[in-house]
């Protein structure tokens, strides 16, 4: 074999094996955690709310609204604690540039009603029911609460995996409406 042929063979084999290892590792790492990150396009979804209406992310975006998705459960303490704060802010401004959608993760209506009736004020924003966890899984939600801000263009602009403070909520609204 000529030296040139030999070099081409060596380089191409080493590069091929290295590239294949790289691709395999990339598939391996990305298959485990397809977590939604800031900058990703938000997955469109449609859910039924507590009041029986259908709510769809892309329609809210089409109306020119940014959307704050708050994944929560009645059994989760920080979720319960941030809920009244969100409601206060939501009701105190005119909220026509954004929508808060509180996505309940796979709980029955009795539990949600029981939780709402224990609050001082009614929740004004829609509570969407993700009974099958399809949306929760599509967004790879880990711990509750997880809050995601989606801007008008349908892009994820902010994400937080722990309880929101009053300032956090304002920051989410600002990012979603920017």
């Amino acid at each position, binding site marked *: *074999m000529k030296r040139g042929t*030999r*070099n081409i*063979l*060596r*380089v191409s*084999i*080493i590069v091929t*094996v*290295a590239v*294949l*290892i790289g*691709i*395999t*590792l990339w*598939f*391996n*790492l990305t*298959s485990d955690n397809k977590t939604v990150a800031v900058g990703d396009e938000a*997955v*469109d*979804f*449609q*859910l*039924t709310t507590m009041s029986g209406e*259908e709510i*769809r992310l*892309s329609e809210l975006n089409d109306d020119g609204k940014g959307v704050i998705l708050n994944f929560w*459960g*009645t*059994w989760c*303490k920080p979720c319960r604690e941030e809920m009244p704060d969100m409601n206060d802010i939501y009701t105190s401004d005119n909220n026509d540039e954004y929508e808060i959608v509180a996505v309940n*993760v*796979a*709980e*029955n*209506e*009795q*539990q949600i009603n*029981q*939780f709402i009736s*224990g609050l001082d004020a009614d929740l004004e924003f829609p509570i969407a029911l*993700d009974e*099958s966890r*399809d*949306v929760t899984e*599509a967004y790879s939600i880990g711990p509750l609460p997880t809050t995601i801000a989606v801007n008008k263009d349908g892009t994820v602009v902010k994400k937080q995996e722990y309880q929101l403070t009053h300032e956090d909520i304002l920051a989410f609204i600002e990012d979603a409406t920017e």
Partner: protein
Amino acid sequence: MMELKEIKCESCGHVNQPGTQLCQSCGKMINSDYDRKKIKDLMRYDGSAVRSKVRSKSIFDKIWIFFTSIKIGVMIILAIAVAAAIGTIFPQEYFIPLGVDPADYYQENYGTLGYLYYSLGFHNLYSSWWFVLLNGMLALSIIAASIDRGVPLFKSLKNQRAKKHESFYRRQRLFMHEKDNGNADEVISQLKDKRYKARRDGDNYLLEKGKLSRWGPYINHTGLIILLIGSMLRFFPGMYVDEIVYLNEGETKDLPTTDGQYYVKNDGFILDTHGESSGEVFEESLNQGNNIVSNFQTDISVYENESSDVVGAEPELTKIDDYSIRVNHPYRFGSYELYQSSYDDSQMKAMTFSLEDADGNTVGENFTVNLDDPDQSYQIDENTEIKMRAYAPDFQEIDDNGTLVSETPVPRNPAFVFEVNAGGDSELSLLQIMNSTDITQNNDYSIRFVEAEQHTASVLTLKKDHTIPLVAGGFVIFLAGVFIGSYINHRRIWISLEDGFTLAGHTNKNYFGMKKELDTILEANSFSPVSERQEIEDKAKDKES
């Protein structure tokens, strides 16, 4: 590094690659260091130089040379073997209970070692990045070593000439020389009958058989590479699926990895045991233990989603099939298979209560609370209604505002506040599994727990594997290579009639068999048997000592 030059053989004039030890053409020793190194089988360096040993220049050459090393290859194999062995010390992640956080599980069950095991990725050994990397390195090592040794071997076996230098004959392990040519032609023709292929160059003969044996290692390396490609493809999307589908009786779920196209409903899980008097052959042994299961079965309905809808929206399902999945009788559709894997009856589904009055008499009918989706009120007779005021699936505490707080959404430790409305009066009581407390004073009624019902969930495994042909094919080729390399002998016999009758024999294995084969033919033609170099050397050693 010193620039090595091509070497011209003094004897036959053949130009050899730098680093060659024996002339490729006539077999004369070129490298004078050769004898000093005391290599047992000098034919090991038959052929041109092992190429990686020759030159080292670019970074690619350095990588290449690193991976051609047998030492490195063995170390990679050892590392894989050791890692695989460690991976069996604690269970792999897919063997730990469903829905448990692996980080907690390994720490709790196996302590610090378990934590280390988890953090180093041993709990998911076969897909941990370093295990994948090791296998990739193994592949490179196999390919590099095969090419580095296979190409020169191919050349040397292809370019063989029948005429060899006299010293080459004397160096072979099997050797004999007689002054008289005798029945040489008869020997050659009898060897041909033994399926030796003959090549002739004047009065020089080369008889050869079983050359395929030399390709055995390369064939089995090819098999290994195909096998490694197969296992690599398992990581590629769409090639391999192994998912657990947990279905409660009556529940409908979409099958993972089908993008919401297929849904399966659990119509019922059946667990049959061998009856006591089944009258079967194994009756005696069956009766020793109790309840030996004879059948695990899940009846399923399969649906296809007509609307390729947005996530979360109610699917439009059309039933496409019915099937009873039993062990070893999976439901097959497309390239998927749905297997019966196990079942779970530990999750609580419903609790039944009865109401007793102050005298201990039962009032009305029993009422059952569905723990997943409880009703708000239960009418147990004409004038008695029980309202569920609060429910916590996994009771933790009573909150400041009087509501029940649940630790998780799973009904593990349900607690209820019931309001009994009978004849205009109402009473409140808190019920937990183990105790009940009156909330209002001097309650007349008490609610008694009657029974609990469990969910019966079937656990199915969804499988798809497009890599089976590669993995199985790789194994078959691997075994064929091992067989060829182990059981076929590459035997070569050189005969020269130029100066009497000179014969030398070489084989890559089983000298005993070759010697026997040669001696039978030689003796039948009145030649003396071959002498074995090994024996001569051993005798010489004996004399010395």
